[in-house]
């Protein structure tokens, strides 16, 4: 009989040339991970394996899955989940929180200005043609008053850390950011897996997200409606985020509707219920602008509600997020966000951007096409890791292809230096054990009566060795994110 050996996860662990979230350059464990590791290293490898299997099974059984596009079988997969949480000490979180609130405040002021007086253009801070040529700029919405002047109610901002550990903003998702259900479900899973750590205290809760979101939605209701009816508008069960839609609707206790459940009469929105038509006041829409209303945007949209935009303009229904917020997450606008913050708030950005080159500026374009092997090139309006070139890892042919595309349509491309994303110890199968994998962070910011951020977020991890792509659609996984009350 041998006594089970406790886990010694970091015996052969190498941080490499990267900033590691858990282990500092001298090989010592950072203070805010020590409490967790005390519990974690007490596990035997068998116990760890059992906990892993239990978590995966529970996700599959509950249908915490996403649909894979372009797969006719309608395959549902679980989003791989790594048991070791990413931990953020209070001091770092305060810094992040301040930076994110500053950013969403400035972006909301920016959108209001752009859709009204356009002072920022008149003052020459942003060249007009960048705004007018943005794919998601909605000129139909010029001079439309939106409830409480809030454009972005829910924002999912992607944050990364460079090789010095500095937090940088990679992009803003100001349209329909998804992923928050994983934050909530991951927390529930980890609480079941490591109850003793949570008992010891120190981790801030995230479970009030749904309540906060409902508060924001109710706050934006049309004036004069005392008890607004809030609904979540989904594209339907075949959408990749359908699980999240049903999850949030159930948590908030609101109806989940499809476009065909709604109709517009006299510029008011109603839902068809078995008791007749019932008025709807606030729509948390998880459908892109383009599909919202076939009489205004894409005429072939079968997902939308004819007349919805008119009802919105008339102030009889509120939408979250508002129309045209995609302008703020255009990757060219991203370049101007530090200036936007300075212009409206007269502050320096607390969270810096990644250095960015605009292909439509002659000097930048020259630099980009000459240095494609050092740069990451992104299409201005694509999300989910599509339409992207990872210069240093690409083949010559791929680089040539992008060179052609940049020359043909410079407005649509930006370049950024390859950032060595920070890494985090991650379980990588029996052969490799625990190894460093690149991570990012997507906190969710709510903007209603005041800005609020749930302490935590979705930490995505690139499970493939050396990969920097963390999207769920491209072989990424997720981790729990713990924000501590203190610094250790």
């Amino acid at each position, binding site marked *: 009989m041998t006594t089970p050996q406790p886990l010694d996860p970091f015996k052969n662990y190498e941080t490499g040339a990267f900033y590691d979230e858990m282990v500092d350059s001298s090989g010592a464990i950072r203070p805010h991970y020590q409490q967790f590791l005390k519990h974690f290293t007490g596990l035997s490898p068998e116990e760890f394996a059992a906990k892993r299997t239990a978590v995966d099974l529970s996700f599959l*059984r*509950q*249908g915490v899955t996403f649909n894979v596009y372009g797969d006719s079988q309608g395959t549902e997969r679980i989003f791989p989940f790594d048991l070791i949480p990413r931990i953020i000490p209070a001091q770092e979180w305060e810094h992040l929180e301040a930076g994110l609130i500053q950013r969403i405040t400035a972006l909301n002021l920016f959108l209001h200005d752009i859709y009204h007086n356009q002072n920022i253009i008149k003052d020459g801070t942003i060249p007009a043609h960048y705004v007018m040529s943005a794919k998601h700029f909605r*000129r*139909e919405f010029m001079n439309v008053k939106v409830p409480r002047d809030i454009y972005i109610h829910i924002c999912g901002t992607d944050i990364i850390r460079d090789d010095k550990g500095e937090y940088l903003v990679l992009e803003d998702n100001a349209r329909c950011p998804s992923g928050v259900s994983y934050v909530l479900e991951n927390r529930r899973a980890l609480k079941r897996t490591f109850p003793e750590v949570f008992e010891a205290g120190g981790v801030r809760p995230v479970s009030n997200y749904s309540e906060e979101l409902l508060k924001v939605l109710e706050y934006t209701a049309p004036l004069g409606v005392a008890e607004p009816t809030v609904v979540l508008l989904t594209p*339907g*069960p075949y959408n990749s985020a359908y699980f999240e839609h*049903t999850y949030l*609707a*159930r948590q908030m206790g609101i*109806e*989940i*509707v*499809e476009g*065909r*459940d709604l*109709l517009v*009469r*006299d*510029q008011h929105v109603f*839902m*068809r*219920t*078995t*008791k*007749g*038509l019932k008025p709807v006041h606030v729509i948390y829409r998880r459908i892109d602008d383009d599909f919202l209303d076939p*009489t*205004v*945007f894409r005429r072939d949209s079968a997902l939308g509600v004819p*007349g919805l*935009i*008119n009802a919105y303009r008339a102030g009889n229904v509120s939408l979250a997020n508002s129309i045209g917020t995609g302008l703020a997450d255009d990757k060219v606008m991203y370049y101007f966000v530090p200036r936007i913050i300075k212009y409206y708030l007269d502050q320096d950005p607390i969270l810096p951007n990644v250095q960015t080159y605009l292909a439509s500026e002659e000097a930048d374009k020259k630099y980009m096409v000459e240095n494609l092997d050092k740069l990451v090139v992104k299409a201005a309006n694509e999300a989910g890791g599509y339409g992207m070139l990872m210069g240093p890892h690409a083949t010559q042919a791929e680089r040539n292809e992008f060179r052609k595309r940049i020359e043909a349509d410079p407005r649509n491309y930006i370049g950024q230096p390859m950032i060595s994303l920070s890494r985090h110890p991650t379980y990588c199968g029996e052969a490799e054990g625990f190894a460093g994998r690149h991570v990012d962070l997507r906190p969710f910011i709510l903007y209603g009566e005041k800005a609020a951020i749930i302490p935590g977020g979705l930490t995505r991890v690139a499970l493939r060795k050396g990969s920097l792509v963390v999207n769920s659609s491209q072989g990424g996984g997720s981790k729990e994110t713990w924000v501590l009350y203190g610094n250790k």
Partner: protein
Amino acid sequence: MLSRVANSLYWMSRYIERAENIARLVDVNLQMLLDFRNLDDATLNAHWIPVVQSSGDEELFRKLYPRTTGQSVTDFMVFNPSNTNSICSSIGQARENARMVRDQITAELWEEINRIYLFVNSPRAKKEWRESPFDFFSTIKSSSLLLQGLTDATIVRSEGWFFIQCGRFLERADKTSRILDVRSASLPEQGSQTVINQTDVLGWSAVLRSCSAWDAYKALNGAEVQPALVAEFLLLTDDFPRSVRFAVRHLNTVLRRISGIREGRFGNEAEKLAGRLLAELQFSSVDDILAVGLHNYIDLLQGKLNAIGEALFQAYIFQPFQTPDDNELRQQEEQQQQLSIIRTVGLR
């Protein structure tokens, strides 16, 4: 409750009931053949065509299959995807409807629907059907009963439940009458003294077995199978859960639970028609039915059941918006505004 959700729950329940009824019908008729001698094409035809007719798909069947055999009929009624009433199609539709309202039903119910769906679409299902039809059909029937039990045991008794019940009882009344219709041609004329032959006795007991009514019938009427009594039992018995009267009585009750209208009154077309049909079934004797002719009676009955389904749809699912006349103008103004927006878009 959203109309779309009510609609999905209603159809989910109808399709589950449909699959089970077809399974029993085909299973019983397959077994019955074991008692026959001299199985030539004409006998087979006479035996199977009424079964195909009962689902109303004879034309499609003749187009798809050159010969009428147990093999071809079961393939048509069990697996054929182009037959929208086959067991495979019904289970597929039940699952599709359940998927749309997955957040409204229990995980247990969803998992079982999913399991039976995966089973009928697997190669294992065809293999089992070829090697042991009995086992195959009992798998389908048990799953359907399990689904009904899960529904009863886990669904909250709110509006959604009533729509599930509506679907179940409307489908059941329809299917029971169709199964009875399979042998309606062999019913002796009213008043005639002809003694029915052995084949017909088997045929009529198959009707009872297809409705799981054999034991209940025997307990009431003794072991002798008399066609008129079978028809009476399946149409007019008040307390046998698969009889038409029982199904319509429950349908009538759940319709009123949805709207809150008392018995004896009606608030919409569906309630009016259901109440009227129930009264007719309660105040009819088998002689009244035979006077009309069994087949004719069943034909009329099915028309009435369809009308109730249609009225239910009109009352709760498809709601035309009541527009006062003076709104007409305002609506056109709105359309004008929309046109000007489209024009702005066109400029881009």
